[in-house]
């Protein structure tokens, strides 16, 4: 709550034209937003570009901000939109290029290697990190958004509901379904002791 009050005070100062107040918000949330968007695009360069877009949009819309909801909810809502849009765009480009390369409309999902088929295969780098990254990427966008906001950004159900523009009950449902999908994805790795 103390943090929220300070965010509201900083935004009020920004609306009055205080550029240093916005810089404080930028420093405070920069890393969080980059990591949040990274979970959608899986590319740090793109995540940084999109984070800039987010802060630019926040700054341009500073006069329309009303402190009915926490500043972080507003910030994450804009960041979520940017991240999801970029993820959808990236997926479309990927499918289009694959179709161009193969010359046929193959089911692209079947061409992505499924490490679950051979759980004993040694993965390069941190195996658990790769498994978790793949598991999170496999979630539908709303479940993924709810899980990421809850698990990684530490938002409350109320704040997540503000970001997603839905009820707290809907947020709990998304998180519940997301967990069930994660469990289904990771069970083979749990059985092999990789998780």
């Amino acid at each position, binding site marked *: 709550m103390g943090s929220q009050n300070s965010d509201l005070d900083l935004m009020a100062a920004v609306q009055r034209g205080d550029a240093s107040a*916005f*810089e404080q918000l*930028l*420093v405070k949330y*920069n*890393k969080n937003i*980059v*990591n949040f968007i*990274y*979970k959608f695009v899986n590319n*740090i360069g793109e*995540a*940084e570009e999109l*984070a*800039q877009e987010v*802060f*630019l949009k926040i*700054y*341009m819309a500073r*006069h*329309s901000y009303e402190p009915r909801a926490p500043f972080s909810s507003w910030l994450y809502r804009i960041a979520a939109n940017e991240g999801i849009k970029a993820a959808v765009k990236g997926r479309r480009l990927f499918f289009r290029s694959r179709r161009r390369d193969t010359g046929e409309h193959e089911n692209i999902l079947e061409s992505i290697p499924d490490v679950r088929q051979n759980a004993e295969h040694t993965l390069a780098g*941190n195996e*658990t*990190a790769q*498994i*978790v*990254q793949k598991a*999170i990427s496999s979630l539908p966008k709303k479940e993924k958004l709810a*899980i990421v906001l*809850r*698990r*990684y950004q530490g938002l409350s159900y109320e704040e997540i509901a503000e970001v997603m523009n839905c009820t707290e009950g809907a947020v709990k449902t998304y*998180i*519940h379904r997301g*967990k069930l999908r*994660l*469990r289904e994805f*990771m*069970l083979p790795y*749990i059985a092999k002791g990789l*998780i």
Partner: protein
Amino acid sequence: MRCADARAAIEEIVDANRETSPDPALRDHLNSCNSCAEYFSQFHRIWQALSAYPSVEPSPNLILRTKSRLQRNGSRTDSRFSWHVVAGWQWMTVSACIMILCAVLFLSQHTSPLVPQIDTAQIDAADDKLLQDIEQSLSQLEENGSLADYDSWSGAYLETAIQELPQAPASKPAQNGRGPL
């Protein structure tokens, strides 16, 4: 405690990052139900494993780049933005009304090409000219005495025409004393 209730409670514990449940009924159930105990173990491990998602460190100059971009875009659009914020829909409404008014004025001054233009001034001038010509002709006729001949000619013509008309039969009086109607 039923397994369905236990599993719902397990998710809440996992969500809160707790290792054990504060609810003694759930603890007793987990101690006695292997399936739910396994369920709890799996969810706990999954939720903890999510911490392994790689965290990225933004570039050291990202904040500087963001600030310079804000300065570039902010100064260019600030005045427009504040104007937009102040005016908003009011300006759009006023602009729409002005455009509608201009359209009405334009249409009222320029009639449709399907409706023929009637130049009354030209017609009046032509009528005046015709009347002048008639007056002039009549005065000429009067001077040389032709007008009297014309008048008499028209009268004689009419008398002759009347005489040549077939005589209408005399109407019989009605038997009941009333007229034809």
